[in-house]
């Protein structure tokens, strides 16, 4: 079973997060202070850390830095009320693997935790295949079965991103950060519009849908059964 360590000093917030992840089948440990969190993380049984930035005793980033310094590479997601761009950069530089500003949707947190746990190995694949979809990364061509898809460069990258994360939810914010590399979140329907276009190109009439909306939060690509 996947084990999370949540280091969060706000009891109510910690309760919400741990409860939510337990409900989704995770085993969750919780620490309320920096030093406690560091000790638990060093014990080494967690698969992923969710670390609040502002912690009593030892700052969240300091906890991650201390872990990295002793060679513990457990993926860490930083939660913070400080949502400036610089803050985000600082969080990632300290050794965090992802950064999420408060307030956030629990579903967003879950999608990012999932993404970190199943981070695609950056294998030098040249062709990605999901169900009837085939993406040739060298020739830059995309096929659904025998039908070639006419994709714009951005759509190609969007599809590649989704195909590397089959069955995982990609949130709008994740797509903006990773596919567009924008460090801001534009109007929420922008990604939907782009995704809608891609979806229309993927699915010809009568074909089963490959890309679907995850209610209120993002998208998922799944191979048809």
């Amino acid at each position: 079973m996947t084990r999370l360590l949540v280091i969060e000093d706000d009891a109510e917030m910690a309760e919400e997060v741990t409860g939510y992840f337990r409900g989704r089948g995770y085993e969750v440990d919780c620490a309320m202070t920096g030093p406690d969190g560091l000790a638990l993380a060093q014990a080494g049984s967690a698969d992923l850390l969710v670390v609040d930035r502002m912690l009593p005793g030892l700052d969240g980033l300091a906890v991650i830095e201390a872990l990295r310094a002793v060679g513990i590479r457990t993926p860490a997601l930083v939660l913070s009320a400080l949502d400036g761009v610089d803050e985000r950069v600082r969080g990632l530089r300290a050794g965090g693997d992802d950064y999420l500003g408060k307030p956030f949707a629990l579903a967003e947190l879950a999608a990012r935790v999932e993404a970190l746990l199943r981070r695609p190995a950056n294998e030098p694949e040249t062709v990605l295949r999901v169900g009837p979809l085939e993406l040739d990364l060298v020739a830059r061509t995309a096929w659904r079965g025998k039908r070639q898809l006419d994709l714009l460069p951005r759509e190609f990258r969007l599809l590649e991103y989704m195909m590397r994360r089959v069955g995982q939810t990609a949130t709008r914010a994740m797509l903006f950060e990773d596919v567009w590399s924008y460090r801001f979140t534009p109007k929420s329907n922008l990604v939907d519009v782009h995704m809608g276009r891609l979806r229309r190109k993927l699915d010809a009439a009568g074909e089963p849908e490959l890309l679907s909306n995850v209610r209120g939060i993002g998208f998922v690509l799944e191979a048809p059964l």
Partner: protein
Amino acid sequence: MTRDDLRALTGTMTFRWTLAIATGFTAMALMLFAFIYWQTAVRERNRIDGIVLTESRSIAEAPAADAARRLEDWLLEDLHEVRYGALFAPDGARVTGNILTLPSGLSPDGLAHRAEVGPLARDRDGDTNEVVRGVARWLPDGRLLVLGYDIDALDEVQEVILRALGLSVVPALLLSLVAGAVLARRGQRRIAAVHEAVGRIVHGDLRERLPVHGTSDNLDKVAAAVNGMLDQIEQLVEEVRGVSDSIAHDLRTPLTRVRTRLERGRDEARTRAEFQAMADRAIGSVDQALAIVSAVLRIGEIEHGRRRAAFAPVDLAGVLRDATELYEPVAEEKAVVLRLQLPEPGATAGPMVSGDRDLLLEAVGNLLDNAIKFTPPDTDVTLSLHTQPGEVRLCVADHGPGIPVAERDRVLQRFYRTEKSRTVAGSGLGLSLVAAVVSLHGFRLLIGGKEPGCTVEVACRIP
């Protein structure tokens, strides 16, 4: 005027300066008069000395038998009663002349000295002595000749000069003190008026201004500058007040919706699906409220100016291409044609500006978003770039209702929305964010266009 008033008056800068200048002036005048006195006195003394020396020499050089007569003649010719003289026998007895006894303090060296002679033969004031310039010399026959000349004239010179001094310096000094006091009092009154005005401002009356007298003196200039600052502050405070009202208002709307939805969900939802639908709608409203809060914080972050440190050369054409790519599908969905016009469409790099690429992209994105939102379907939105000497102009033009001329300044304020746009969704912060980004970069934002149709231009300096 009480003692305290007086102390306050004499304590003013104006008064002290006047006092210092008056003192300096008096010292100068005293020195000048002293010099004049000294010069005049020396001249007068030399003249008197000349008289007695010449006469004593001429008597001494005359035949001995003539000496007494010559002396008597000299004394007789004295119309002003200023001449004294006597001839003493070698034993000290007076031979002739109006000095009765041999003066004790006058050495018989034939040189002129200050001396006291007396008692005098024709003394009108009893037996007091007279102070003279005198000379004593031995005659060849062994008699002693003593001549004296009254120096009252010297005292008169002194008196005249002192009187002149009194007549000029004392009134001048008094006049300057009075002038200083008047000036200081006037300044004090103006300062007091300023003080009162500031007091009222501090107590919250931001419409109060410092008094300006129209004399364009220093105090007036300072007052005018402060008034300019107060105008700015008043406007800012008004703006902030407007902003907090707007934030409160704009937040209350979605929060009220959340409340009613939760309430209805609790009371009316019969199935889990119904409850979930209600929760989703409530979450949507909360997100809307959060988006407003985030936007406000974000504008604050941009306005703070910290990001200026990370400025780098940015290719504006690239920003425009990215923005177009990002918004093209949105435009298409609304049946709006999004056109991009670049000066050199094929060039790999267009005009470069110094800035934050993400923020510029976000700002251009906001402008496009607005344009697409407000332009009617089946019209176009044009995003273009014009190079001019020293600057690049980035222009977004649409066929929407536009912004009335009177409202063009206000749309840049946070939360300001034209009445016509009230019905269109949005936080009302899009243009404010653009304005914040533009001012962070030191660019200028120009809103133009005829109704219908709106153009927003950003004039970017080229480094």
